[in-house]
């Protein structure tokens, strides 16, 4: 999760260490209402976000780009035509993996994060809501928009 946010292996390594250290120091503040892992995710997330802010890699341009990756409609109907993806391209496993990673890296940090927590790490919607400190409804909306953006990015490879 941390590496997905900061996109830098060395920085992720140091944040991960700091996450465990903070957890150790703050163990007495852990309330058993949430799962321990959810609490740990939240600490890691805060540190990763702080690191991003320092490096100013979070800006509104990314939000605009994410908006442009959403499907468009006219009078309620899709403005674009869609085809099923090419099964041969989908079957090329080695290439597929790097394409998926490249597409995830193009998402904004918020979208990368919700996709990572829900679709990769398989946390429940409730757990994701606790980690991100937003409502479950907001998690569902953000996840859907993130998947739509990712679908758009993958479309150019698999059509």
């Amino acid at each position, binding site marked *: 999760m941390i*590496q997905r946010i900061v996109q830098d292996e060395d920085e992720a390594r140091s944040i991960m260490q700091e996450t465990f250290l903070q957890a150790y120091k703050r163990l007495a503040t852990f309330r058993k209402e949430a799962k321990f892992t959810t609490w740990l995710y939240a600490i890691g997330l805060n540190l990763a976000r702080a690191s991003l802010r320092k490096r100013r890699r979070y800006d509104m341009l990314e939000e605009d780009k994410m908006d442009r990756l959403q499907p468009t409609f006219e*009078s309620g109907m899709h403005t674009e035509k*869609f085809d*099923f*993806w090419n099964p041969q391209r989908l079957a090329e496993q080695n290439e597929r993996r790097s394409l998926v990673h490249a597409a*995830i890296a193009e998402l904004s940090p918020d979208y990368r994060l919700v996709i990572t927590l829900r*679709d990769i790490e*398989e946390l429940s919607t409730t757990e994701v809501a606790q980690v991100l400190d937003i409502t479950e409804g907001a998690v*569902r909306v953000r996840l859907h928009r993130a*998947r739509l953006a990712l679908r758009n990015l993958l479309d150019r490879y698999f059509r």
Partner: protein
Amino acid sequence: MTLLDKLRNLFAPSLSCEQANAFIADYMEGRLDPSLRTRFEAHLHMCPSCAPFLEQYRKTVELVHEDGQIDVPPGLIEHTISFLHEHRDQYSAKGTAS
């Protein structure tokens, strides 16, 4: 589904692509109520765009799940554990000193 539900569905306005789009995730998770699911599926059958679009969306989730995991860099776990040992000792020493 009761006869009343079937009649309601028969006369319910069909969904637009935009409305169907908003229900995709709930449809995949089986969270739509039966009457809305029927309308959603009816839209898929008649719309040439939405069936491939739903399949692309489903495939996206599948690909992320199968291929999205980042491998843990070699040595990371050992490195983190030794870092924690080192800092735990420092932290305990500070606690004892104060």
